[in-house]
């Protein structure tokens, strides 16, 4: 049986009928057609599918779509488009933090969640914040640098 679902997806209302067992990841990718959120494992182990649910970082593969009923979901597409990258995205670009790019949407959302709650994180907090996001390409070194730069860019942008 399908159930009506409506939620705020990157500022727009997204509505559709979904099966009770449909994951939020599948809803975002297949029903809403936003493929920036990545399916790396569907077991909550890689962080590729990370999104913000009411501002909180979650693995969308572990959440049922219906659990997001009436809530606000932010995906990578909600951060900034290719022509207007957000400070976090720009910091990743400038730092050479993206290689294959598959883990990057999740990394960007983990970073966004971190900087929203802790604008000036030290390196330990940064590492902690992305410890649930696997990256097989970069060795994380430049991602950590990018997050430090993102904090600075966001900070500068506000002054």
């Amino acid at each position, binding site marked *: 049986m399908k159930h009506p679902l409506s939620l705020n997806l990157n500022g727009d209302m997204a509505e559709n009928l979904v099966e009770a067992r449909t994951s939020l990841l599948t809803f975002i990718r297949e029903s809403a057609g936003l493929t920036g959120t990545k399916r790396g494992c569907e*077991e909550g*182990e890689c962080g590729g599918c990370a999104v913000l649910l009411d501002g909180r970082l979650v693995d969308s593969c572990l959440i049922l779509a219906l659990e997001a009923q009436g809530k606000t979901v932010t*995906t990578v597409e909600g951060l900034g488009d290719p022509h207007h990258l957000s400070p976090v995205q720009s910091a*990743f670009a400038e730092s050479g933090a*993206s290689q294959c790019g598959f883990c990057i949407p999740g990394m960007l959302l983990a970073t966004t969640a971190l900087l929203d709650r802790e604008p000036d994180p030290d390196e330990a907090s940064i590492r902690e914040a992305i410890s649930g996001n*696997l990256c097989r390409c970069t*060795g994380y070194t430049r991602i950590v640098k990018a997050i430090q730069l993102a904090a600075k860019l966001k900070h500068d942008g506000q002054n």
Partner: protein
Amino acid sequence: MAAHTYNQVGKPIPRIDNASKLAGQAIFAEDLQPAGKMLHGLVLRSPHPHARIRSIDTARAEALPGVRAIVTAQDLPDRLVGRYLADERALATDTVRFVGDRVAAVAADTREVAQEALGLIDVDYEQLPAVMDAFDALEDIAPLLHPRMAEYEVVAMAAPAGGNICSLNELSRGDPEKAFAQADRVFEEVYTTGMVHQAYLEPHACLGIHNPDGSFTVHSSTQAPFQLRGMIADALAVSHNRVRLVPTEIGGGFGGKISMQDEVAALALARKSGYPVRIVMTRREDFLCGTPRAGFHIAIKTGVSNDAKLIARTLDILLDGGAYAHGGVLVSWALPNFAEGPYNIPHLRITARCVYTNKPPSSAFRAPGGPQVNFAIESEMERIAAEMGWDAVDFRRNNLMPDGHVSTSGATMDCVMAPETLDAALALSGYKTDQTRPAPNRGRGLAVGNWNVGGMASAAVVKLNDDGSATLLTGVVDLTGVHTALAQIVAEVLDLAMDQVTVKTLDTESAPHATIAAGSQVLKSMGDAALRATEHVREQLFALAVEPLDAPPSRMELHQGDVRVKGAPGRSVPVTNLLGRAMATSGPVVGQGATGNYKRMPSFGTHVADVEVDPDTGQVQLTGYWASQDVGIAVNPVAVEGQIHGAIVQGIGMTLSEEMIFHDDRLANANFLDYKIPSVLDVPPIETVLVEQPAVDGPFGAKGIGEPPIVPVPAAIANAIFHAVGVRVTSLPITPEKLRKAIRAKA
């Protein structure tokens, strides 16, 4: 450091694909959504490591509403295919040889229906005894995985040697036995390494389409569009132009996306159902069916003289090739060429045997064979120095191969940078041989690595647009940021800005032949092709400028959109003018360039690792890491450094935690919870230094860089552990359990 005088080459230019990837708009294979109806495909895979298929009954599955097509081997021509040895089928006929071997495939309206249909296919298996260990495979009584091996076509490199040995390769020089007899000391040891998965974040995915004209289109997340196209066409028994392979963005490959996976199944389903069919592997399937790094068993014997010279060595290497001859054969073939290590050893014999087992077919993974062999070589160097009372750095220095060294295979090695990278890493880390144990349970280790990078053929086309901007057309995919480097090369030659150059990856029907994106070869192979194509463009522009400038081409140069006479800035003509002239006379300016297979280039790097060991738990914490790498010239230093970081962290994984574990003949850790790749918390601060000395024949002096920096990692860490706690674990990964046991045994 060499001084660059270039505008683009050598600059830390951001990747040209940043905007699309950072905005989540890059289209990976699973993101493809063809217009109109698309079906979801799933593959039925063998649950047994070795079995005969007595019968397959698909009737119940076909009756399920929403199922559009089911295919088995009956839907395909009777063809054996392979990259090295034609030993496998796109779908099994009568035998399955590993858990995950493809048996049948289903296409349905939804993934859920396809999943349900898989459960309704009845396969009657007769289980056969499985061979799960490379040594068991060598036994006379071992079941033969491929009893008809002698009849298989050798496609390339394979040297089948009977029994379960799908390749036997050996090279030698001098007389090692005699030299051992004369040596002052002889050391023997055995090192083993686990089977490890590339664990790219994007699982394999493809989309198959049967075109109205009967030809096929397949989109795939592959490193090897042209090779894969050939295998798919062969499996379908059609000519190669009838399969158009469209490479997608690729979410990491590291050698694991070269082999054929489910592409033929998707195309057969598309043909039978009349709809495009997409097959996306789950993470579990990818662990079961990927093509991991082979586990090695390495018996190493070394003879030294009292003046700290290596005089003789034998290496007897057994590789677990898995069920089919994938890259394991390539590794076996290549081993005798690089397993001499960075050293000059007068008496040497290297024997490699790749054997079939009932495990996933092993293949290439970043410097295939490199870190395994280096683990043995560099562990031995440290051990021998310790036992002989020698300074381990001096011992290495004493034996490093000189420039112009002639390798076991008879090739002359140019640009040997072994001593330079050793010195650079010592300086960067402040390494002192008498300070390798700064405190109890803390240790510092070093390893020198060597690798031979790349060489296969490529062609490229550069077209000049009517405003003088340029487009590079290539059939190679971008794994490492190499497209940015290619753009830099084109921009450099034509003196263009980066945004005046586009790099376009085309499908196999549109692009000229391209090498595979593997073997650290794209920058050299496609880089050379692109360089020549761009020079061809420049040549045409200069020819067009002879008349207006009244000067010979040899005196011309390109400068920001003009061709001008060198040393006479006033005498110039805009490229756009020349293009106008071209249109009226010779036609549009299009350059082409190509490079053939080329001699592999040696590459060196030295790594230093700091560890702290908890002797009670055996837990190893990396506290610092330093790496030098010989790069020729870094066309893009940020990209190069990124490759080094990534390689080191993959090396850390295979050294300390990663291993595919088989229990009861089945893979027991087919997920990221049980197969632990490093997270950010496992990564120490890493410092790198690039050793630049232009390579004789790389484009702008560049050498390939993707693979070499993984080579010294296991040995550097193992040596650090040895200095920290005085024990040596000779099998990778060095898990806390193994290390704890070794520490207890010593106490």
